């Protein structure tokens, strides 16, 4: 990917501050998968004051549930699911130190504001190109909620995963601010 910024997890305030909505990024390091049910469980645990099964400080969550790996493969096909469904839990997770999110689609105005306040970043991964994205995953490990099947939380080691900054730590939104698309529809 031309003109892409190479970054590594865990994300810091410094890394986040430099990223701008619309930037192309190649992301490497550890990321956790987690979508609808995993978010609900993380939020429930947080509200009850229980320990979370993954460390959120500086963490990046990829809204994804891959296909099973066939023999000889690290992972099956993997790509983003639509992010708005995670919005209500995201506010809580951001307060607990979550720095990066990888998904697709719009976020609520509240999430955009929380991303700005917490100096986090929301990345877009291309949807529907999961065979291609799977090549950027080097290692996988189930770390929580195995009983959720495809929705379990996995720790992925990714290398140069091609992403785009959709919402930056200054609250700029590629869908809204950059292209002038009304984000409140």
């Amino acid at each position, binding site marked *: 990917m031309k003109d892409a910024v190479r970054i590594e997890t865990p994300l810091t305030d410094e890394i986040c501050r430099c990223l701008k909505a619309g930037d192309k990024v190649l992301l490497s390091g550890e990321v956790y998968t987690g979508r609808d049910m995993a978010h609900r469980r993380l939020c429930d645990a947080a509200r009850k004051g229980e320990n979370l099964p993954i460390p959120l400080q500086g963490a990046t969550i990829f809204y994804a549930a891959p296909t099973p790996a066939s023999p000889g493969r690290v992972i099956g096909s993997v790509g983003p699911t639509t992010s*708005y469904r995670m919005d209500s839990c995201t506010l809580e997770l951001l307060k607990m130190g979550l720095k990066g999110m990888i998904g697709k689609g719009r976020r609520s105005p509240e999430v955009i504001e929380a991303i700005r306040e917490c100096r986090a970043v929301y990345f877009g991964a291309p949807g529907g190109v999961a065979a291609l994205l799977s090549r950027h995953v080097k290692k996988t490990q189930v770390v929580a909620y195995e009983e959720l099947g495809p929705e379990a939380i996995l720790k992925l080691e990714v290398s140069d995963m091609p992403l785009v900054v959709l919402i930056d730590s200054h609250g700029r939104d590629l869908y809204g601010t950059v292209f002038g698309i009304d984000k409140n529809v």
Partner: protein
Amino acid sequence: MEPIREVSCETVTETVRRLFIEANTELGEDILEAVNLACAAEELDIARLALEQICENARIAREELVALCQDTGLAVVFAEVGQDVHIVGGSFGASVQEGVRRAYSEGYFRKSLCDPLTRKNTGDNTPAVVHTEIVPGDRIRLQVMAKGGGSENMSSVHMLLPTAGVEGIEKAVVESVRKAGPNPCPPLVLGVGIGGTVERAALLSKKALLRPLGKKSGDDRLAKMEEDILDEVNRLGFGPQGYGGKTTALAVSIEMEPCHIASLPVAVSIQCHASRHKEAVI
């Protein structure tokens, strides 16, 4: 009396299995052609990149026999069963479900179905949604579709005023795409069903997605609407992946049937660029 032709359940199962494996790993040539054309026309760097990734992804999936998308979909089957066919060796419905079960297990596809309330996964991607129609003849035509959840969430039915006319219909379709925004993985394929009842319009809109891209409706009025809606949708500027650009949709297909004098049902089935469907005749 017409002679009866026997078709075994095992043949049905095997055909369904093969079609779903192909659908999930081989992107149709019509889609690839449309994406390539769109790519040549895109001026925005990030939009062109998104379209190139779709082509590259299709190549990898085909070569390595892996799923095009991690969401290998809810399995939808359209079966046209000839009235002179006798299914032997079991139940037709069960043999279709078994074909889905085998495809999703052997293809290493994601099992994406769950109980709506407990959210417990059914474990084998069944039950498939099966639409069976009895037709003349002694053949079985099977069309299968792997329908992703993200784009399906953006689909909708609109019960318009009977006098809303072409303008009202076009407005409803464009509005549903505008509301969906970047969520359903554009560039999209739009299936539109007009007429019938609420469920008939929805079914027509799904069937419309089976039409090869680039093939216009045989009804000139609908062909014109398909063209106009496509132009209007592409003027929204969402572009591939919603990153901006000219290509928000690749095609619009409309199917229409008469409706009640009090109604004008319009359904929009929104399909992502990974429009996965295959067919066979037994």
